[in-house]
C-alpha cells in the first residue's frame, strides 16, 4: 500500500531495541499517526525484507533506520535501498544515538532524507512522531493519516 492509495501508512522500522520500538510507537501515537509498523530487529532481517519486496507497491511508505544494528549496520541497509529500484523513492529517516557530525559524510553520499539523533529524554523523543508526519506530508502531499482519524 502507498499512503497515496489510501489506508494506513506502512513504516519499516529497523530497530533492535524493544524499548525504542515502544517509544517510537508512543511518538507516532503522540503525533496522531495511525501506522502499520513493520519491525526488523536486526540488519539481516531488514535486508531480507528489502529484497523480498522488490516491487514498488510492496515497498513501505517510509523507513526508520537505526545506524547501530547487529549483523548488518544501517549504512548497508541504506546502500541496499539505494540499489533497489522499488525502494528508490522511499523516504528514510535515519535515527541514531551517534551524532550527525560523525555520520554526515556517509549520509550525504547516500540518499538519506533526514537524520535525527536519538533524543536524550522523553519529550524530545515524542517529537520524532511529528518529524515522521512532516516527512509523509512532504512526500505524499497531505497528512492522510491525520485526516483519516
Amino acid at each position, binding site marked *: 500500500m502507498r499512503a497515496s492509495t489510501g489506508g494506513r501508512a506502512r513504516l519499516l522500522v529497523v530497530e533492535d531495541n524493544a524499548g*525504542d520500538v515502544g517509544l517510537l510507537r508512543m511518538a507516532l501515537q503522540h503525533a496522531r499517526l495511525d501506522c502499520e509498523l513493520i519491525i526488523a530487529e536486526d540488519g539481516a532481517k531488514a535486508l531480507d525484507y528489502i529484497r523480498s519486496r522488490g516491487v514498488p507497491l510492496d515497498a513501505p511508505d517510509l523507513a526508520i533506520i537505526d545506524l*547501530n544494528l547487529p549483523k548488518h549496520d544501517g549504512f548497508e541497509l541504506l546502500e541496499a535501498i539505494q540499489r533497489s529500484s522499488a525502494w528508490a523513492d522511499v523516504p528514510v529517516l535515519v535515527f541514531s544515538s551517534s551524532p550527525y557530525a560523525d555520520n554526515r559524510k556517509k549520509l550525504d553520499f547516500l540518499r538519506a532524507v533526514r537524520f535525527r539523533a536519538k533524543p536524550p529524554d522523553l519529550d524530545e523523543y515524542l517529537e520524532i512522531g511529528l518529524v515522521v508526519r512532516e516527512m509523509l506530508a512532504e512526500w505524499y502531499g497531505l497528512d492522510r493519516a491525520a485526516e483519516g482519524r
Partner: protein
Amino acid sequence: MSISEPAKKIERWRPALVRYSLAVLAVAAATLARMALTPLLGATAAPFITFVIAILFVAWYCGLPPAALSILLSAMAGAYFFLSPAGLLSIARLENQIGLGVFVLATLGIALLADSQRRAVHLARKEARERKRSEAEERERRERLETVLASIGASVIATDSGGRITLMNPGASSLTGWTQYQARGRPAGEVFVTANGHSGGDAESPIAKACRERRIVGFSDETQLKGKDGVGIPVDGTAAPMLDESGRLSGVVLAFRDVSAWKESEHQLGRVRDQLELELAATRGLHDLGTRLLLHHDLPSLLNEVLAAAKRIAGADMGTIQLLDADGALRIHAQDGFTSEFLDFFSKVSQEEAVCGTALARGERVIVRDIEECDFLATTAALDILRRAGVRAVQSTPIVNRAGTPIGMFSTHYRTPTEPGERELRLLDLLARQAADLIERVRDEEALRKSREELGRSQQQLLLVTENMAAAVTRCSRDFRYVWVSKGCAAWLWRDPEGMAGLPIRDVLGPEAYETILPYMERVLTGERVEYTAQVNYFGTRKRWIHAVYVPTYSGAEVDGWIAVISDVTDAKDSERQLQEANASLARANQDLERFAFVASHDLQEPLLIITAYSQLLQRNYASRLDGDAAIFLENIVDGTRRMRDLLADLLTYTQLGPHTEAPTETVDLNLILEDVKSNLRALIAETDAIVTAEPLPPLRVYPAHCASLLQNLIGNALRYRSDQNPRIHVSVKQADGVYQFAVADNGMGIDPKYHDQIFEVFQRLHGSETPGTGAGLAICKRVVERYGGRIWVESAEGRGATFFFTLPASAASAAGAAGR
C-alpha cells in the same frame, strides 16, 4: 879635515884619464919646446930644462901621481932626445946617468912641494867660505826666534844667570804691563810677581825654583800673576833653566800664558761633568733597578721595588703605587710609610678624587707643592687625611703603557712643602715608563702562566677523561692503522694498548667489521666530521651496536688521519627497542581504553535513554497511582538518569577529543564562535545579569566545535562559580612566540591555588551538587588545548576571581603538526 880631501876634489872635476893625459901632453909639449930651443942651446945642453916646467904644471894641477908619470916620461924623453941624440950609447955614460938621476930626484921634490902648496891654498879658501855661511845662518836664526817670540800667544821672559831680564816678548809685556825696554835688565822678581790663587799669599817664584832644582819646573795650579795694576791673572807655564855645555847656569826662560778663560771653562766643565755623573748614576741606578726588577715575577714585590726606587729618586718620605682596576678606579697595590687610616681612605680612588685621581683624570703628572695651598684639595675630606698622615706635598705620576693607556699611578709624598726638580721628574718619567713595561710584562706572564697551567690541567684532564671514559678513543692514520688507543678502547677490543700502535685496523677488527666501517673512514679522510650508529660484527663473532664520531686530524692542510670516539650502544639499542615495544603496547592499551571509553559512553546512552524515557512515562502517566514514597523513588531515578546522561555526554566529548582525529583544514572566526557560545549561554547570562566582553579575536585553524566547547566551558564556569557580584567576564588575547595566548578573566569566587592542577582532571569537582556540572568541563578544555599543542592554566586566589589562560598555535602549520602527533 882629512888630507885626501883636495885630491878627492881634484878627482871630482878632473877625471883620472884627463889628468894623466895632461901629464903626457905636458911632457910632449916640453919635448917639443926643448927641440925648439935646440938651435939656441945646442942639442945636448940642459936637456931637461923645459921638462921641469911641465912637471911643475902637472903637479899643481893634476896631483902627485900624474906628476910622477910625467917625471918618468920626461926622464925617458930627455934621455932619448937630448942627452944622447945620436943614439942610446951615450946613456951609458956616467955623467949622463948622474944628470938623469939628479933630474928625477929634483923634479920629484918639486912635484911634492907644489902639491902640498896647492893643498894649503885650497884649505884656507874653504875655511873662509864656511865661516861666512855660519855667520849668516846665526843671524837668520835669531831674527826668526825674535819673530816667533813676538808673535806666539805665550808669554816668554828670559833672564841671565843673575836673574835679570834679557828678553821679554810682547805677550809677556801685555800680561805684566812692562814694556820690553823698561823690563830689560831688571830683576825678574820685580816684573814677574806671582801669588797663590787660593791663599792669596806669595808663592815661591818658579824662576827661583828652576834655578834651585836645575830642571824645568811647572807653575803650581793656582798661580796668579799680579799685573802692574795689582789684579791677579791666573797663569800657567814653565820655567826652564838654561845650562851651558859645562853645566853652568846661564839663565832661565819663563814661558807662561793667561789661563783665566780656560780656568773659567774648566770650572763650567766641572759643573757639567758633575751633573752628567749624577745623571749617569741615576740612569745606572734605573738600569740596575730594571735588571733587578726583571727578576721579580710577582706583582707585589715588583711594585715594592719600583716604589722604593721612586722614593729614592724623588727624595720622598712616603709613597704609594696604585693600579687601575676593571671599573676604572685606582687601588693601592704598594705603599710605604702610611697609616691604616690613610690606606683605608685611599684604598679606592676614582677619577678627579684627591691628587692621584686628578692626575688620572688629567692624564698627566700633578704636583702639589703644598697641600695647604692647593685649590682642588681645599675643603675635601682627603685634605684632612693627608694632614693627619703628615703629608705636606705630593706628586702623582701616571703609569702609562706603550699603547698610551694609563694603567696606574705612583705618588710620592713629602713631609715638607716640596717641588721635585726637573731632573727628578725626568727620572720619575723614565721610572714610570719602565714600571709600566714591567707591570704589563708581569701581568702578561701571569696570564700566560695561568693559561699554561690551565692548558696543562685541561690536557691532563683530557687524558684522564679519555683514559677513563666509557667510550673508546683511538687515533688512526690515513693508511688505516692505529696510532694511539685509549686503555678503555684496548680493553674493549680485548687487547693490550701498548702493542696496538701501528696495527692495521682490518687485522684488529676482522674483515667483516672493517668492511662495515670502511665507508665512514673514507668519508672522514675527506675532511668531514662523521657520526654514525651501526651494528658491527667484531672479529666476525661479536655483534655490537656502536655509536661513533670520527673527527679528521690535520697535518698542515692535509688530513693525516682521524680521532674516533666509539661507544657501545648495544644495551641502549636493546633498551630503546624494548622501550619502543613498551611504548607501542602502551599506546595500543591506551587506544583500547579510549575506544572502550568511547563505546561505553556512547552505547550506555541508549539503554539510559530507555530508562529515562520510561521512568518519565511512569511519572507522567501513573503519578496518581503511586503513593508518596514511590513518587520520590521515581523522582530519584529520573534525577539519577539525567545526571548519568550528562556525565556520559561529557565523557563522550572528552574521549572524542583524542589525538586520532585529522587536523583541521579551515580557519574559523573565533568572534563568531564566541557569539554562538554567548547565545547558548544566554539564559544563564540573563539570570546572573552578567556582562561578557571580548577583544577582537584572531581567526584560527581549529575545529569550530573544539573552540566552542573550550569557550563555553570557561565562560560557563565563570558564570556558575560567581561571587555575590554580578559576573563580569572578559576574553582577551595577545600574540607571542608564534602562539596566541588567550585569557578568560572573571570576578567570581576564585580558586584556591592548591586546586589549580586538580581542576583540570576529568570528573574532579570542587563543589557539591548545589552547583551544576559534571566535573569534565576543564578536562575537556585541557584536552582541546593540548590537542593543538597548547597549554592551559589558571591564575587565581580564593575570593579574587580567576583568570584562565590558554595558548593555541598562531600558525596553521604548527596546528596541523601538533594535531598529527
